[in-house]
């Protein structure tokens, strides 16, 4: 008899303990759930804030590029009208001074475009066009753009394009931008000799090679050149103008296109920059 009573109280006590344990577990589970919900809310709030900041950044960039470019385009546009003599004849002095206004306006526009481009790329806001283009024609257009600067220094840009290069699909304007930057550097840092641009097909797509016989780049500087604002000749007394953004933009554009950019250089002998882009002909990705 006593044994049975003992059994019952034992069992009751055990049941009681199990119930308490279960209650505890439920409470802890509820507590955990509450904490997870709390953290989730915090996280989603943080994510909303970050997304809001991103949206703000891209809205700011869009506004800035519009607000900075619009007045400059107006300056360049009206100067062009005046220089064409459309608003009446100009004397030589007026033409010369207006020419300086236009050149400065264009220079300022290029700087603004560079700063906006690098910000846009860093903010992940750069979108690349996908349309068919002729890489040989792109190379020639880039060479034409820099031809006047080259002529001023008595240099000529020798543009060689492999025969029968196929049309490719990509962002023609951005490809030209990279080539113009490389050619402008080649001209800027070369006083005599030659500047060349070669275009050839590769198994992966296309390669552009810009070579010069200029001052060259010392080996210890090789690692830094593709970082923004890096210039070998800095300080106010420097001999060449520029922001130090050109190569940084080139590198980022080429990266985004899935390609590679690199160079070889010997001080006093010259430099050769090579851009490889994995762009394919339109056969598979048909676009007009």
């Amino acid at each position, binding site marked *: 008899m006593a044994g049975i009573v003992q059994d019952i109280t034992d069992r009751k006590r055990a049941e009681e303990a199990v119930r308490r344990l279960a209650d505890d577990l439920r409470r802890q589970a509820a507590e955990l759930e509450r904490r997870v919900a709390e953290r989730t809310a915090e996280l989603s709030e943080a994510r909303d804030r970050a997304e809001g900041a991103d949206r703000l950044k891209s809205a700011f960039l869009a506004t800035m*590029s*519009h607000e900075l*470019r*619009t007045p*400059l*385009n*107006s300056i*360049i*546009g*009206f100067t*062009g*009208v005046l220089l*064409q003599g*459309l*608003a009446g004849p100009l004397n030589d002095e007026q033409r010369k001074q207006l020419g300086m206004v236009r050149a400065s306006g264009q220079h300022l526009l290029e700087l603004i475009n560079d700063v906006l481009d690098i910000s846009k790329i860093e903010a992940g806001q750069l*979108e690349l*066009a996908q*349309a068919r283009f002729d890489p040989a024609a792109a190379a020639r257009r880039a060479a034409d753009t820099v031809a006047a600067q080259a002529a001023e220094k008595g240099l000529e840009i020798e543009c060689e394009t492999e025969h029968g290069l196929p049309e490719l699909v990509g962002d023609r*304007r951005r490809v030209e931008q990279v080539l113009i930057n490389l050619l402008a550097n080649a001209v800027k840092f070369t006083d005599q000799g030659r500047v060349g641009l070669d275009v050839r097909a590769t198994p992966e797509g296309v390669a552009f090679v810009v070579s010069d016989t200029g001052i060259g780049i010392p080996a210890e500087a090789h690692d830094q050149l593709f970082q923004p604002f890096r210039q070998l000749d800095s300080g106010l007394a420097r001999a060449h103008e520029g922001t130090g953004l050109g190569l940084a933009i080139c590198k980022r554009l080429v990266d985004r296109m899935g390609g590679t950019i690199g160079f070889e250089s010997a001080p006093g002998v010259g430099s050769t920059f090579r851009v490889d882009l994995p762009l394919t002909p339109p056969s598979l990705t048909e676009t007009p």
Partner: protein
Amino acid sequence: MTRVLLVEDNAQNRYLITFLLNASKFSVLSAEDGAEGLALAASGDFDLVLLDIQLPGMDGYEVARALRQNARLDGIPIVAVTSYAMTGDRERVLAAGCEGYIEKPIDPETFVAQVRAFLPEKGGA
């Protein structure tokens, strides 16, 4: 005389484009926004429409679609004037009913020739 309807919100751009076209003997009527452009299109005869895409209120795409509803403009080219910075705009511009586009900033030396390229052969200015 070639008659152009210009829709452009920036006053200086409006002046510049009007000046260049006038210098080449085009006549230009201009509007500051889409609503004014639509009103002008409803009451006048034009040979070509030049349409800024970044407009306040109704944007250029909406204006183009609305203009295309207007039977008076059947067969009249609508040409968007837009900056390259606006991505994917080529397809959007065509889808909205434009013939094509001229890139901003406009180049005063080539602008009129670019406009002429959108006019039917025989006419000229």
